[in-house]
């Protein structure tokens, strides 16, 4: 079996010395947040404000890399204003010429990241930066390669889903769990902390698109034997805009899942 290891809640390990955490403290850690944006003119300032606030309050070195795919709504202009407020070392702009997809956005972001840790999250405020310190301390516990947010364990939760949406989510999770046995409770989640090199390796091995992309990353992580821990997160759905989960999305999900099952 692979060395895949999952830990869900903080467990003070009295047997192990804190040698690892001493190492982490003496080495300087910098956290790069990748924010691919497309038409996030309203959300971007808020998420940046929340990120900056969280990092500052915890004395963490950070940068926010905004990868805008030529949004027609002026996202890039707002990003430049934010850069003026927070400084070019903290708000990094790496725009692209057109809508080129999430996977390549991450690749682009990693190439420009100067941190040793990378955080990926949604820019629409469904993910709250306040969870980031929990990710970081979890990672330090046993020097995990990946820490992923889960909406489904105690401490986590979702706001704004009706029964139908919840059903779709639990159904999707059930099928994925059955077929893939991924070892994490929230497979489609996209709020994660990675060691930069780990993310780089995984993305190079990932081929799917959309929802399934995030799932495939977890499956590849397991394949490569990376250590993964989970942290509960709250997910507030669709502050602005409407949710898009129609029949075509479901079909796409099942197709992608099938590809994943047969390729592993």
């Amino acid at each position, binding site marked *: 079996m692979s060395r895949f290891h999952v830990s869900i809640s903080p467990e003070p390990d009295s047997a192990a010395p804190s040698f690892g955490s001493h190492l982490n403290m003496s080495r300087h850690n910098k956290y790069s947040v990748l924010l691919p944006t497309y038409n996030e003119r309203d959300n971007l300032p808020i998420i940046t404000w*929340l990120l900056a606030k969280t990092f500052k309050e915890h004395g963490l070195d950070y940068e926010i890399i905004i990868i805008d795919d030529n949004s027609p709504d002026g996202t890039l202009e707002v990003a430049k204003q934010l850069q003026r*407020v927070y400084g070019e070392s903290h708000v990094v702009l790496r725009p692209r010429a057109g809508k080129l997809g999430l996977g390549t956005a991450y690749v682009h972001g990693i190439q420009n990241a100067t941190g040793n840790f990378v955080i990926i999250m949604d820019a629409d405020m469904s993910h*709250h930066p306040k969870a980031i310190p929990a990710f970081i301390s979890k990672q330090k516990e046993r020097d995990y390669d990946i820490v992923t947010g889960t909406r*489904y364990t105690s401490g986590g939760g979702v706001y704004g889903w009706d*029964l139908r949406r919840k059903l779709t989510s639990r159904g999707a999770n059930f099928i994925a769990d059955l077929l893939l046995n991924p070892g994490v409770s929230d497979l489609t989640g996209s709020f994660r902390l990675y060691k930069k090199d780990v993310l780089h390796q995984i993305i190079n091995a990932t081929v799917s698109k959309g929802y399934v992309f995030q799932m495939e990353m977890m499956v590849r992580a397991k394949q490569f034997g990376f250590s993964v821990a989970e942290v509960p997160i709250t997910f507030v759905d669709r502050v602005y805009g409407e949710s898009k989960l129609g029949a075509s999305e479901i079909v796409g999900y099942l197709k992608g899942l099938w590809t994943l099952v*047969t390729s592993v």
Partner: protein
Amino acid sequence: RFATAFTAAAATWLLGLVGVLPLPATVRADIWPVLPLLFAVSLGSYAFVNIGYNLLVFRECPEAYHELMQQIQEAKDDLRAKNVDIA
């Protein structure tokens, strides 16, 4: 990996059906042919219970929503004061 397990199970079942495997007469006639159905029904029941249970214990977080709404307001006010274009 899933495909190999499935193919192996399907092959075994078919072999049992046509008589290649040494099965006791009652098993082969009465039980074996309905095994796939039994499997499907069991899986369906398991799915039903699992999904149903998870729906019942599904965690909601209204406090997170309210906290976020408040912080959005705070952020907007702060950034407007710093000359960022906020709607």
